[in-house]
């Protein structure tokens, strides 16, 4: 069994190194095929492990080698395959295989083809480490590795200034959260003596709640950065600069969910500190609403989908915060499938429209791009949470959790956001695929993506539809590790009212979006219409002016402060004092040179002055020596 574990883990690394060999040379097909194949192998070995864990129920725990061993600290490269990590492995490997195959088609005109695949496989490798590691330090390795690969991939088209800027922003913002994570890890080590999950979680109940709350908060700060929660969310929208397969893999399915995985993985800790859980849930609900509102008005197709990811992440954190870890994980899985599908569909549309992103400039593409149209509609329906598809089973479950735990405020917010989600996802679909062919005005003639790209997307389509069915089997497996609280509304009546109600609400939102955006007279908004100058619209289009605030008051302030530090303090003060001392010595030398002016009389005067000084000293000390007794008494009187 260990063989499968190691293949699942290291095949992406092998694929990445293989592709890296061709790094500098121009596009070679092999550099794309081999990593995808290796990822297929990793997918197969993960499914075998899933079947093993699902059927027999016992987990794998293997230690490859020691990493750091000093004093009491002992950190091995240990890997564990238990219920939670096998689910994550499945999600990661499946989505990345699909994205790899898709990317072979998507990137074939790009001269950095080989480099792209080495970075993408490296990303999957670090994600696998993050998911499979058995201790916090291993998690941190994956954490930073994923951050590095996202920096490489966002900044893939480095000749674009905005791409490299977005890459740096993403990396630095993740770094800020990683500091919180690091402090959390230190707290865990110094309080429980070990960083292994099992050892640490076993020792945690004995700690006092104050330290536990601190550990919970710091670990959550780490999760916040990676999953782009409220204060650190601006990087996710800018990360759309990267190629679409990257957004599909990293900023929809895997990396952003790492934060949720962390919270789910440290569920024993968050069980002990419910108030932190409540904070996480309320922040999650807030972010859900916050992101959904921004998605309503955005005019860039990929950013709308990015904001919907952010909003769904809010849902997951809400569920995890309320203690329903298995629900959060389930929603994570389901969301990964249909969101990746949505992104890949968007990729097809982008290619067809020669990298044009504004949905208002498209329209009526449904006739031309039949396959993508079907896939994106099904994905949006799943996202909205209509009955048979995956979204219903995971998202509505979260609403139930909120309702059962009597957090009606969170329930209301999440319900309203569900409606918003339905509205903006179908606003997108309507604008792109229905209505009048506005693209003709811009002289673009779109064409459907390659056949094998659509085939590659089909597993995601299938899963988006049937993922809900796994709920039962998934539930028995995962709850062996996570707390298995059942969420049943006491009376069947309220249950039915609730579900039917949400379905109607969502249906109505979809219908309204369709009616509004498939009208004939839609034209590209050019800032004149009344709606655009309304305060709300301006607030939302500028993302509540948060990026402006960050740029103005943090980035610019930091730059000016460092400029001051350098020019003023470092050169003037610190260096100044050093050179000042040197100058003082030099100047005193100069002034005293006057004494030896060669003129005998002045020199004699100085001589006599010297003797007078010495004589006066003699007098003073003589007197002091003689009357020392009296002087001491006077001084002590003065209290010296």
């Amino acid at each position, binding site marked *: 069994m260990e063989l499968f574990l190691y293949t699942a883990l290291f095949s992406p690394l092998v694929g990445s190194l293989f592709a890296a060999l061709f790094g500098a040379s121009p596009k070679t097909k092999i550099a794309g095929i081999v990593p995808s194949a290796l990822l297929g192998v990793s997918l197969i070995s993960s499914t075998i492990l899933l079947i093993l864990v699902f059927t027999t129920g016992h987990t794998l725990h293997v230690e490859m080698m020691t990493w750091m061993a000093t004093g009491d600290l002992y950190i091995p490269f240990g890997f564990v395959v238990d219920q939670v990590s096998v689910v994550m492995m499945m999600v990661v490997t499946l989505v990345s295989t699909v994205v790899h195959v898709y990317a072979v088609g998507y990137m074939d005109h790009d001269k950095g083809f080989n480099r792209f695949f080495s970075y993408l496989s490296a990303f999957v490798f670090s994600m696998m480490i993050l998911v499979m590691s058995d201790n916090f330090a291993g998690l941190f390795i994956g954490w930073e590795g994923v951050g590095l690969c996202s920096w490489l991939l966002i900044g893939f088209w480095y000749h674009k200034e905005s791409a490299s800027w977005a890459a740096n922003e993403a990396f630095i913002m993740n770094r800020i959260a990683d500091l919180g994570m690091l402090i959390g890890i230190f707290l865990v080590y110094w309080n429980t003596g070990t960083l292994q999950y099992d050892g640490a979680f076993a020792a945690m109940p004995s700690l006092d709640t104050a330290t536990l709350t601190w550990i919970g908060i710091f670990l959550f700060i780490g999760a916040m950065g990676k999953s782009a929660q409220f204060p650190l969310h601006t990087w996710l929208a800018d990360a759309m600069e990267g190629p679409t397969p990257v957004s599909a893999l990293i900023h929809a399915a895997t990396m952003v969910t790492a934060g949720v995985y962390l919270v789910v993985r440290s569920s024993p800790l968050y069980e002990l500190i419910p108030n932190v859980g409540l904070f996480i849930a309320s922040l999650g609900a807030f972010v859900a609403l916050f992101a959904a509102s921004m998605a309503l008005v955005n005019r860039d197709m990929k950013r709308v989908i990015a904001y919907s990811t952010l909003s769904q992440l809010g849902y997951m954190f809400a569920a995890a915060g309320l203690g329903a870890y298995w629900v959060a994980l389930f929603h994570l899985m389901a969301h990964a499938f249909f969101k990746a599908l949505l992104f890949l569909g968007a990729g097809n549309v982008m290619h067809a429209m020669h990298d044009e992103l504004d949905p208002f400039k498209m329209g009526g593409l449904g006739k031309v791009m039949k396959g993508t149209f079907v896939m994106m509609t099904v994905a949006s329906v799943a996202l909205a949470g209509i009955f048979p598809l995956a979204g219903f089973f995971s998202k509505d479950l979260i609403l139930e959790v909120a309702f059962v735990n009597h957090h009606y405020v969170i329930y209301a917010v999440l319900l309203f956001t569900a409606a918003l989600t339905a509205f903006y996802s179908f606003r997108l679909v309507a604008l792109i695929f229905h209505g009048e062919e506005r693209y003709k005005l811009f002289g673009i003639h779109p064409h459907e993506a390659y056949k094998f790209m659509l085939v590659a997307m089909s597993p995601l389509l299938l899963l988006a539809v049937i993922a809900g069915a796994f709920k039962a089997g998934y539930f028995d497996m995962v709850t062996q590790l996570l707390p298995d609280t059942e969420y049943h509304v006491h009376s069947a009546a309220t249950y039915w009212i609730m579900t039917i109600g949400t379905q109607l609400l969502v249906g109505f939102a979809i219908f309204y979006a369709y009616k509004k955006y498939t009208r004939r007279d839609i034209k590209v908004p050019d800032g004149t219409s009344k709606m655009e100058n309304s305060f709300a619209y301006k607030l939302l289009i500028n993302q509540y002016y948060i990026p402006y605030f960050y740029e103005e008051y943090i980035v610019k302030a930091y730059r000016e402060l460092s400029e001051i530090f350098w020019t003023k303090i470092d050169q003037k003060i610190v260096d100044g004092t050093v050179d000042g001392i040197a100058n003082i010595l030099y100047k005193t030398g100069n002034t005293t*040179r006057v004494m030896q*002016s*060669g003129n*005998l*009389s002045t020199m004699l005067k100085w001589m*006599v002055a010297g003797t007078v000084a010495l004589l006066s000293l003699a007098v003073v000390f003589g007197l002091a020596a003689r009357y020392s007794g009296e002087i001491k008494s006077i001084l002590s009187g003065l209290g010296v």
Partner: protein
Amino acid sequence: MEIGLNHYLVLSTILFAIGLVGVMRRKNLLMLFFATEILLNSVNISFAAISHYYGDLTGQMFAFFVIAIAASEVAVGLGLLIVWHKKHNNIDLDNMSSMRG
């Protein structure tokens, strides 16, 4: 009114002060030499006085040697002065500053 050692010492201090004034004030080197003579003599007086009041001849010994030194100093000093005079035909102190620091 008994003349004590202090009187002599006060006297030699006054003379010494006058010598100092001379040394510092004079711009003419020859006059400067005169002033140094005064300094030396004032010291001699104190030597003699101390040797007298402490009944010890060492003071006088020193006085002799001081006189000997003074004599040779004047000899050499005047010689140099003459040589300087031949070269610059003035013995003004202010333009003798070739030994500037």
